[in-house]
């Protein structure tokens, strides 16, 4: 059969984000796939070297548009580590709640993308609607829908408004009440299982070899989660489970995401219950225009909704970072794992596999 070169993206309905894959296809089978990122490259790490420590917050959240909050968190953690700032107790809880909200919103976006990819309009619309409800909570808390810039070194920008937690719990109950509906129409739909099961298999050995993190690894039965291994913020104060699946295919990855989402909602409830009622949410930091941070380097990491998110930051003692390097989970998934997972699959499953690996293009390009 004739080999054909097919450009999948960047202008393609099945492509979430500005990303492109060059496929060598033989009939309907993919012989070789090579990812072609860079459509969203803005040189963030270079730009951040030219802005002060505080000025970088508006930039850093724009690295990942789907889930900007963990980007803020990792950068704030890096600055805190270099400058030796401690976060007050209540601030830690607020941060954790905020990040778990972001995780739920991000996973709902993922559900939209996945459902949309398989032509599952109904579920896609529901998921996007429920994400919007959560974005409303973000808007109430931070004043913005997508880019919140809520975290800062030493804590958060402002405390929860009055009655916020009640409204948050109400919203989450509203979303959680629809989980049976989602299960019936989406996760346990026999046709959907036919599409997603045994597709894009990444087994444990391969996943470890290729440096997979997050739910790609959790779907192979490995409970690798930074929140457990190296607890930050308030995650060591509460109990939570890490849900794993065994098979490592697209379906297991999706179920791992679903379970993590439900667990996140429970975590928010636990965090709200345990949160100190009073107290500061932010440590005072020096005047941002004159703020210098002692020389040194730090590697910090947290668990974003797609897996381990790391930041290597170097300070030379000045008012600006000397070098910032983000290690984003999509980088590995999109460039190494995706290419391997696509080999031998059918063209119909390119989007399917890509979304199940949760590749977010701006995060790769930075």
């Amino acid at each position, binding site marked *: 059969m004739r080999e054909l070169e097919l450009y999948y993206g960047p202008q393609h309905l099945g492509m979430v984000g500005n990303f492109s894959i060059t496929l060598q296809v033989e009939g309907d089978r993919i012989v070789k796939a090579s990812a072609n990122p*860079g459509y969203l490259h803005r040189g963030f*790490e*270079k730009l951040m070297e030219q802005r002060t420590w505080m000025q970088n917050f508006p930039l850093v959240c724009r690295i990942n548009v789907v889930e900007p909050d963990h980007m803020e968190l990792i950068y704030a953690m890096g600055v805190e580590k270099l400058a030796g700032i401690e976060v007050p107790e209540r601030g830690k809880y607020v941060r954790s709640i905020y990040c778990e909200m972001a995780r739920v919103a991000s996973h709902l976006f993922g559900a939209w993308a996945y459902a949309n990819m398989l032509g599952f309009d109904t579920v896609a619309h529901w998921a996007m609607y429920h994400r919007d409800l959560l974005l409303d909570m973000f808007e109430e808390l931070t004043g913005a829908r997508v880019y919140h810039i809520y975290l800062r070194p030493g804590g958060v920008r402002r405390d929860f408004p009055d009655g916020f937690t009640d409204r948050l719990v109400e919203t989450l109950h509203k979303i959680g009440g629809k989980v049976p509906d989602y299960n019936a129409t989406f996760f346990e739909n026999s046709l959907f299982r036919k599409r997603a099961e045994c597709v894009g298999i990444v087994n444990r050995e391969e996943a470890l070899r290729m*440096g997979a993190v997050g739910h790609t690894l959790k779907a192979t039965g490995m409970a690798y989660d930074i929140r457990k291994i190296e607890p930050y913020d308030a995650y060591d104060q509460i109990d939570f489970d890490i849900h794993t699946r065994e098979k490592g295919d697209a379906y297991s990855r999706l179920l791992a995401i679903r379970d993590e989402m439900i667990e996140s909602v429970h975590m928010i409830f636990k965090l709200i219950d345990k949160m100190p009622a009073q107290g500061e949410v932010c440590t005072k930091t020096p005047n941002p225009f004159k703020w210098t941070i002692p020389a040194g380097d730090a590697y910090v990491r947290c668990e974003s909704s797609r897996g381990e998110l790391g930041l290597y930051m170097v300070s030379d003692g000045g008012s600006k970072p000397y070098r910032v*390097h983000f*290690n984003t989970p999509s980088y590995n998934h999109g460039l190494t794992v995706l290419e391997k997972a696509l080999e031998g699959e059918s063209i119909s499953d390119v989007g399917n596999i890509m979304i199940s690996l949760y590749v977010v293009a701006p995060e790769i*390009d930075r």
Partner: protein
Amino acid sequence: MVSLKEKLLSDFEGLKIDDREADRLFIDTQKEAVLSLLSYLKKAGYNHLAMVSCTDWIDEGKFELVYIVNAYLSGDQVFGKKEKKCIVIRTKISRQSARFMTVMEIFENAEPYEREMHEMFGIDFEGHPRLTPLMLERDYKIPPFRKDFDTLNYVNNTFGKIPSIEQRKEGLK
């Protein structure tokens, strides 16, 4: 039980190890030792290469390559309570002849990172199968992440020099 730091110090020469931080071990090493150090650590359980990074110390005329390895652990697994969770290996190479060995044989997922280093800093990794452009499509005289690359200057000289359509029209008359 001998700690990892002591083991490393006895097995390798010329290591500078900083273990002040709670969960991190910073190792400064000669560039020759990096590959053997990485495979040693992989055997010791640090089987996940988190990232490869690079810092441009322009005043010293050196590039500092940074390899960060950690261990794949399951949630409740305890990895020798005293051991550090992340190891940061730093090594310096010359800025003029920026070349180094690829570590892909040890950690396969170093591939895109090294490709990016090649593109952004102009470091050649020997033995890397495809050092083709990853992100960028344009040619930059100086690789953009080097400290002597002035972005604002570049922007003004390329994008700023392009006239608007109105200016072009006036130029016609």
